[in-house]
């Protein structure tokens, strides 16, 4: 059974349609990425799942039960985009506050707070006030407050926005540990490489609709971008590309697109050598998510 199933979600704010019949499903222990530009409807969807937005049409089911707006959702954890923390409380006090609000108390609360401090790497700063924390520390604590009560599904709205690469890495390590325990994750992002590298499946959202869904390979096929991109780095700059190539963005690079690597690549390399050029490096890769997004939505996804 799907952990989360959304069917035909529609929501209008005045004349603006934020969600337009969006549907998706999420399996147990899965990390699903919602990818889309700003204003695509990602945050509205997250808020609808959290019970903070009433849908005009459609349903949201958790473990087969249709969710009602504003009813408590103990199986759900929400990690908002802002660092929703009390700056004048310590890390421990913040965790205790949100733990109690989510139904934890007594020994169980103490155990979970201790786990969260370890998990987020903040055990040594447990009694420090949050206002003195770095951006990355706040992000980790923000995450910990949302998963403290061991929800089966965690919604993460742009969990890595505005953090440095090191903090981003540690946030994904934390998410990996959660998944290892069977927690399902749904995260929104507009970072292409993050979605490409971290998410098992991706739902491309645009104008409140799920434009495509699947693994990167499946998305490439859906976008009819089955070709492979070949990039050659040469020993010197060239002004004219050999037949079958285009000049790359950097001087001394050539770009080509092929569909059968085994059959077409030797011929390409032979043509380069025939021009008296030496190949320093070779890269063959599938179409990028950027290209998929462009093909599916007709526009660039800007970060």
């Amino acid at each position, binding site marked *: 059974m799907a952990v989360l199933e959304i069917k035909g979600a529609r929501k209008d704010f005045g004349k603006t349609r934020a969600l337009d019949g969006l549907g998706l499903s999420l399996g147990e222990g899965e990390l699903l990425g919602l990818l889309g530009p700003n204003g695509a409807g990602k945050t509205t969807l997250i808020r609808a799942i959290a019970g903070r937005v009433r849908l005009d049409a459609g349903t949201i089911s958790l473990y087969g039960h249709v969710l009602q707006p504003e009813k408590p959702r103990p199986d759900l954890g929400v990690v*908002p985009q802002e660092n929703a*923390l009390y700056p004048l409380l310590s890390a421990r006090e913040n965790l205790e506050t*949100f733990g109690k609000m*989510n139904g934890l108390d007594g020994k169980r609360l103490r155990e979970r707070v201790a786990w969260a401090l370890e998990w987020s790497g903040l055990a040594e700063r447990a009694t420090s006030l949050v206002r003195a924390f770095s951006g990355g520390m706040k992000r980790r604590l923000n995450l910990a407050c949302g998963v403290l009560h061991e929800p089966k599904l965690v919604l993460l709205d742009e969990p890595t926005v505005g953090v440095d690469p090191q903090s981003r890495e540690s946030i994904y390590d934390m998410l990996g540990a959660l998944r290892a325990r069977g927690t399902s994750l749904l995260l929104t992002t507009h970072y292409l490489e993050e979605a490409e590298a971290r998410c098992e499946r991706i739902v491309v959202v645009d104008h409140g609709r799920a434009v495509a869904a699947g693994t990167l390979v499946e998305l490439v096929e859906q976008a009819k971008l089955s070709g492979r991109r070949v990039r050659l780095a040469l020993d010197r700059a060239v002004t004219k590309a050999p037949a079958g190539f285009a000049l790359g963005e950097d001087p001394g690079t050539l770009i080509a697109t092929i569909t059968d690597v085994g059959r077409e690549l030797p011929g390409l390399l032979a043509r380069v050598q025939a021009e008296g050029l030496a190949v320093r490096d070779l890269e063959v890769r599938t179409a990028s998510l950027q290209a998929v997004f462009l093909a599916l939505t007709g526009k660039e996804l800007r970060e």
Partner: protein
Amino acid sequence: MIALIVRNAWTQLRRDRAAQILAFVVPIAFFSIFAVIFGGGGNRMNGTSRVAVAVVDEDRTEKSRALVAALEADSGLHVLTVASPRQGAPDTTLTRESAERMVKRGDLPAALVLPPGTGAAIGSFGGGGVKALILNDPSDPVAARMVGGLLQRAALRAAAAGGGVTGMAGRDADEMLPLRFEQRAVLGEKRESPMVAFYAAGIAVMFIMFSAASAGGALIEETESGTLERVLTSGLGMTGLLLGKWVYLMTLACAQVTIMFVWGMLVFKLPLLQHLPGFIVMTVCTAAAAAAFGLVLATLSRTRQQLSGLANLLVLSLNALGGSMFPRFLMSDTLQRMSLIGFNAWALDGYIKVFWREAPLSALAPQVGAILGFTVVFLLLARRLARRWEAA
């Protein structure tokens, strides 16, 4: 460059309605409120409002009755000679004791007793041995003086009607009054700083209203920081959140008032310990209403700036009207009645009953009832306004 900065600032002001209201409407509103209270017709300091006074005629002679009639005819006084203890009950003629009780209760600021022999002393300019007695509440310093002065005018009129004045030759100037009188305060005689209790209550009520409005702004901060969103997705809900905030604001206000009164006790000899039960009742009720009032302002405002403007306007206006800056009993009857639209006027009345009139706890029932009524209305209103934060 300077012109650019000026133009930018005006452009931004033109687009910020809240700032425009704060800049132009609030000063006009304040001016109007203070002009009504302190200016023409709003208070008794300028003599346009009548002083209520109980008159007890113990002499019961033709001359004393003429004096009472002259007092009743005076446009500066509202004379009561009978009391109606209950609605529908027959009127009873006032006695010295019942008049004194009325002054002590705060029903009237002063009572005038005309003892036996007053009739003969009218117009004697100190020649007669009998003095009229003014029983007054010293919290209203104007009323007794007005009654004393107007008594002389009435005595002169009564004397003129009854055959003229006598005994002016060879008298001391201070003694030369148409009718001599003495004054006795029926409250606060033993206190060293009798008005401290009044001002402590006035300032305390005003500041807990400011404080509750400011602390209620935490709701707006929670919206901005995202913690409100997180709280609302937990099991707590909006009603639980508002009740939690209300209890916090109430305990904060109780602590503020207590600290202020303890300071008053230690430094200004405010008799706090002697009036502890009444103080506790009034402080808890006033704090409950002030906290709920703060929540209404916070749920009504969308930004900190809006909250600040609204709080300044409402708190200062309600307190000017409610008597924190200028005693209500010095205001006109109309303004005194109008001021009861604010819970703070009831709160001040309650504190004055406790510290000034030394009234029993049961006498606080009207004030406690009204303040708790305001509290319930404020809480319901705040809950209604907070719906904008619930699921869209």
